[in-house]
């Protein structure tokens, strides 16, 4: 049971969602965030004022998955978010202490989507 946190480019979100769907990973949270991964600054100009946009728009995805799905989820994110240029983002895999599904009160492996294949 892991929490997978990924920070990706907003314009790759659709590809990542498609890849996750194909990997049969269901249930995730998406947040719009600001950040940068050392990519070249984007320069913009407004009325003679030149600014570097150091913080870029990124999207953060959080997914709680059962152990058998960890690799599949990470692979889906890597394939969907990859462009090969600086700023593609990161994937973090974190250990999780407890998980509770609010609707049913199930906990841990039973509470994350999807359940382990053996139980299906």
């Amino acid at each position: 049971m892991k929490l997978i946190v990924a920070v990706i480019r907003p314009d790759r979100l659709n590809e990542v969602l498609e890849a996750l769907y194909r990997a049969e990973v269901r249930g995730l949270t998406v947040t719009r965030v600001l950040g940068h991964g050392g990519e070249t600054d984007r320069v913009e100009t407004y009325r003679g004022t030149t600014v570097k946009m150091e913080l870029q728009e990124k999207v953060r995805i959080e997914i709680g998955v059962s152990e058998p799905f960890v690799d599949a989820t990470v692979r889906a994110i890597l394939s969907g978010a990859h462009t090969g240029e600086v700023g593609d983002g990161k994937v973090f895999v974190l250990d999780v202490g407890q998980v509770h599904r609010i609707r049913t009160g199930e906990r841990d492996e039973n509470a994350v989507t999807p359940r382990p294949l053996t139980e299906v």
Partner: protein
Amino acid sequence: MTLPLLLALQDAQPSVVPADTAWMLVSTALVLLMTPALAFFYGGLVRSKNSLNTMMMSFAALGVVGVLWALLAYSLAFAEGNAWIGGTDNALLAGVGTEAKGTLPHVLFMAYQGTFAIITAALISGAIVERMRFGPYLAFIVLWTLFVYAPVAHWVWGGGWLMTRGVLDFAGGTVVHINAGVSALVAALVLGTRKDYSRQAILPHNVPFVLLGAGLLWFGWFGFNGGSALAANELAALAFTNTFLAPMATLVVWVLLDYFRTGRATAVGGATGIVVGLVAVTPAAGFIGPTSALLLGAIAAFPSYFTIVARSRTRLDDSLDVFAGHGIGGLTGALLTGVFASKVWNPAGNDGLLAGNPGQLATQALGVAAAIIYSALATFVILKLLGLVTALRAAPRAEGLGMDVTQHGEEAYSTGEGSILVMPDTSATAMPARALTPQAAS
């Protein structure tokens, strides 16, 4: 403008009529406003990351096409020439002074016609938004104005062959709308689909902008159609009133179609219905009576509505449905002009099918066919030649990031968060600051 009207203008003893001049001064400003209005209409329909680029495609036409019009295109459209194209007598505005052209100062006639050239080029942009690079777009509208707009305007209004054959096009159903609509279709095919097209939902980012644009277009259109009488007279009043009535009927029918098909009346649909009604009444405005205008407006909703429904299920990414709105709307209007036209309303015009002259419908069809064939071929050739010199499309990466940032280095809705002010006098950068606030800029 009809042949007899134009001949009358040319034969009359040249003298400027103040009342006509006053109305045409206002009309010219009204039509010019339609291009910024179009920028809002189109700008609201695209995603926020492409909104500035889309609006700039219209605004840029105000500059590029306007200058070109004065330098050369006006002469090619309206100077004396042959049946196919005007001469260069008025190039660089030579011979365009305050002397009378018809009952207007010649400079005003030139400016009025220039506003039409500008919006016609800008109309095409709706088919290729969110993917065409800005530089090649500018080159395209320059070439298109010279090689497509100017000749077709000459055919219909400048004494060319369609005018001689009696095609009725009061304010530009053929010259402006069919011409732009067909070119848009070809441009969409040559450019190809947006990378996200039919893979993910592409939604309008600001529907109030779309309504604002439609409202301002309608306002400006009173100058477009009412001004095409080139005088402050009964004909102007008729065209004005028809421009008032026809879009109302289209709006009602469009909303009802929405209700019957989806159960809800959409705002984007309402705005589109208004524009389609305006397009359809454009060729007919000065030739048909007001009740015919209501009928024409109502009928015109159907073909455009169902073209949009069908188009969105295909791989044809005419992104903002320029072909359905202007191509099909213009076609419907041009043909219905041949149905409803009546000499009772405009003795200088002609009778249509309902007044016992079915031949006019055939004449209208000839005008439509000529515009479709020429404009499709010429647009295709221009884009293919441009494509040999430079890439027409932005790279997929740039398309994903958005055309505002990649083409213009600006964002429509930037908060300024995360931006660092670049000091103008040194290469050093200041502390991270909110660059758009006055403190940071000082």
